[in-house]
């Protein structure tokens, strides 16, 4: 039985894992870099070990340092959180070798699912749909035409060496196929010195929907329904919800079955997530698998009524899953907002710095998973995620209202945050109607970034406060000056005496 867990992470996720450890009577061990001596996970943990300089490649990413801390502390298991070493096959292998339980899948599973091409092949052979296309180089125009015929228009021609949209062509009409191929090839050649291109079906208005799965060491795998993660900016998720407004019970059952099948195909053990792209016609395609806890796992916890970290630990202890697929039901509706230290008005530039004041929302149906506190200096070395705000209510409509209420209560000063931007998302008509896909932020950019207007009175109140604060400061200064100047007092005394004499 696991009695002591080292959490090889920092920030909100380290604190979140430790909370479950505490409830289970498990001793938690933190590791920290130079910049993180004052971080909340170090304060929250029962034990803490220093592992090196602030940059993560000199501390949190060094397997040797983590293993060393685990041995020193006598921790029998390591929880990797997300990011850092969580999907590092080498780390999982090393833990096993050192006799430490890695709370996550084996090295083999991580390598198979971590590589996009092998993951794709595994999915194809276990009958899970993938985005149609080829990964090999298209050499002849004849071959291109036959592939296009097979997968159907529209298609995307992409440079193998590509990136940044170069050598990429969207083909919608048959007559453009050949000319697009030539253009893509010459562009790829010019940009990367390599004209290899491959072809993929273009998914119009895609939704990013993922399924949470759990597998134990006895071969049982269940899914915990979906999470809708289509609100993204530069491929970074911003808001997640469950259930997905796009989902139907039939589709959920089908996708759930495929997600379980995919996990069974690799004999998956632990908590994992299968990501899919879904189009408006409800066709879905495997995208990738994440072999770890996801940032957005709390919405599933709330709607299913489960603690995923506890489940992970129970699975690592070799226990059987406590629930069967039939026991899994969604109750109500949950949203998560990611609060980042960044400035939406300034191209989302990161905003590290001192938290001067913070008040987190409370009240019915609200959860915050965060790690900052008043007087804490957010370091510039790590992710800008400050906290996650999760709300739950019986219906989607009520849940939206609750999220807006919670965002209204959330006060952080000192650093710029995405709170106002998030509130705008919950006011955008497409979002409120549940009609959105991964182009949502792009399509609604003007509305999302338009500042709310304050009326004249509201503006004047803002100026008045600054004015009064300034006057108070001057008053304070004057008082201090007066008391410092002792001669002044004697002078006053003399004057008063003089006056009395008159």
């Amino acid at each position, binding site marked *: 039985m696991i009695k002591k867990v080292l959490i090889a992470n920092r920030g909100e996720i380290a604190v979140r894992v430790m909370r479950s450890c505490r409830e289970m009577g498990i001793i938690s061990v933190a590791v920290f870099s130079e910049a993180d001596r004052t971080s909340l996970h170090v304060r929250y943990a029962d034990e803490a070990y220093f592992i090196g300089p602030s940059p993560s490649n000199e501390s949190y990413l060094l397997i040797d340092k983590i293993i060393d801390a685990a041995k020193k502390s006598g921790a029998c298991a390591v929880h990797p959180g997300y990011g850092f070493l969580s999907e590092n096959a080498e780390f999982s292998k090393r833990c096993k070798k050192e006799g430490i339980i890695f709370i996550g899948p084996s090295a083999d599973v991580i390598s198979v699912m971590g590589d996009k091409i092998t993951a794709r092949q595994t999915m194809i052979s276990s009958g899970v749909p993938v985005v149609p296309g080829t990964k090999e180089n298209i050499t002849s125009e004849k071959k291109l035409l036959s592939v296009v015929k097979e997968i159907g228009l529209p298609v995307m021609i992409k440079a193998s060496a590509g990136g940044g949209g170069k050598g990429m062509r969207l083909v919608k009409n048959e007559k453009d196929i050949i000319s697009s191929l030539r253009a893509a090839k010459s562009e790829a050649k010019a940009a990367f010195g390599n004209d290899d291109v491959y072809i993929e079906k273009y998914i119009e208005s895609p939704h990013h929907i993922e399924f949470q799965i759990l597998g134990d060491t006895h071969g049982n795998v269940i899914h915990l329904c979906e999470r809708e993660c289509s609100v993204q900016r530069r491929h970074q998720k911003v808001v997640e919800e469950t259930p997905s407004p796009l989902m139907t019970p039939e589709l959920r059952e089908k996708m759930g079955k495929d997600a379980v099948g995919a996990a069974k195909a690799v004999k998956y053990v632990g908590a994992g997530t299968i990501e899919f792209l879904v189009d408006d016609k409800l066709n879905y395609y495997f995208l990738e698998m994440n072999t770890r806890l996801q940032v957005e796992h709390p919405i599933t916890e709330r709607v299913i009524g489960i603690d995923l970290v506890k489940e992970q630990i129970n699975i690592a202890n070799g226990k059987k899953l406590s629930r069967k697929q039939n026991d899994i039901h969604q109750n109500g509706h949950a949203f998560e907002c990611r609060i980042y*230290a*960044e400035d939406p008005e*300034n191209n989302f*530039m*990161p*905003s*590290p*710095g001192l938290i*001067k*004041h913070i008040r987190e929302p409370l009240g019915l149906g609200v959860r915050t998973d965060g790690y900052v506190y008043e007087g804490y200096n957010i370091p*510039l*070395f*790590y*992710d*800008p995620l400050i906290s996650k705000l999760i709300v739950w209510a019986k219906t989607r409509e009520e849940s939206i209202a609750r999220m807006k209420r919670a965002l*209204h209560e959330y*006060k952080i*000063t*000192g650093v710029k945050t995405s709170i106002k931007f998030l509130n705008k998302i919950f006011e955008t008509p497409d979002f409120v109607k549940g009609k959105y896909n991964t182009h949502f932020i792009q399509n609604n950019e003007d509305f999302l970034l338009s*500042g*709310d*207007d*304050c009326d004249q*009175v*509201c*503006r*004047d*109140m*803002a*100026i*008045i*406060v*600054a*004015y*009064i*604060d*300034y*006057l108070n*400061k001057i008053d304070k200064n004057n008082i201090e000056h007066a008391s410092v100047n002792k001669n002044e007092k004697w002078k006053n005394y003399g004057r008063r005496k003089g006056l009395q004499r008159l």
Partner: protein
Amino acid sequence: MSLEINVDDQAVKLELLKKDGNALKVRVDDVDYIFDLVMVEHGVYSIIFKGKSYNVELVEAGHSKKYIVNTYKKSYEVEVIDAEAKYMKNRKKSLLEGSENSIISPMPGKVVKIPVVIGEEIKRGQTVIIVSAMKMENEYKSTVDGIVKQILVKEGDTVDGDQPLVMLE
């Protein structure tokens, strides 16, 4: 005492007319406001005006006369222009004219790379310095054609917000 205040680059005149405990009377340009104001937490003020409750947060921006003021819906940049500020402003203007071509870090971070050297001729839009913060790299580009006059930081240095990094000519 009447004072000039800049709000989002617009000048407004304020005057405290009366103060009795929390009850204040303030004139903003030519509108008089009578309200109740209390500082409820450090940097957070509560105002009750005509029965309406306003919460306003103040964050000092750099120095004691410059504030970021957050109302729920909007945030304002507010600067108190007293005699000293007026003087400094005039001085700064002439200073700024001389150093218009400096690259200043808008946020704290770490210098990743300086792809230019002193004396190098650079074009408008050319990257002069790369600073990383929170796993993101930001390239700062020159807004003018010119020559690199001075490099004030080294690769690997940690920099503050508003710190001059590279001077151009």
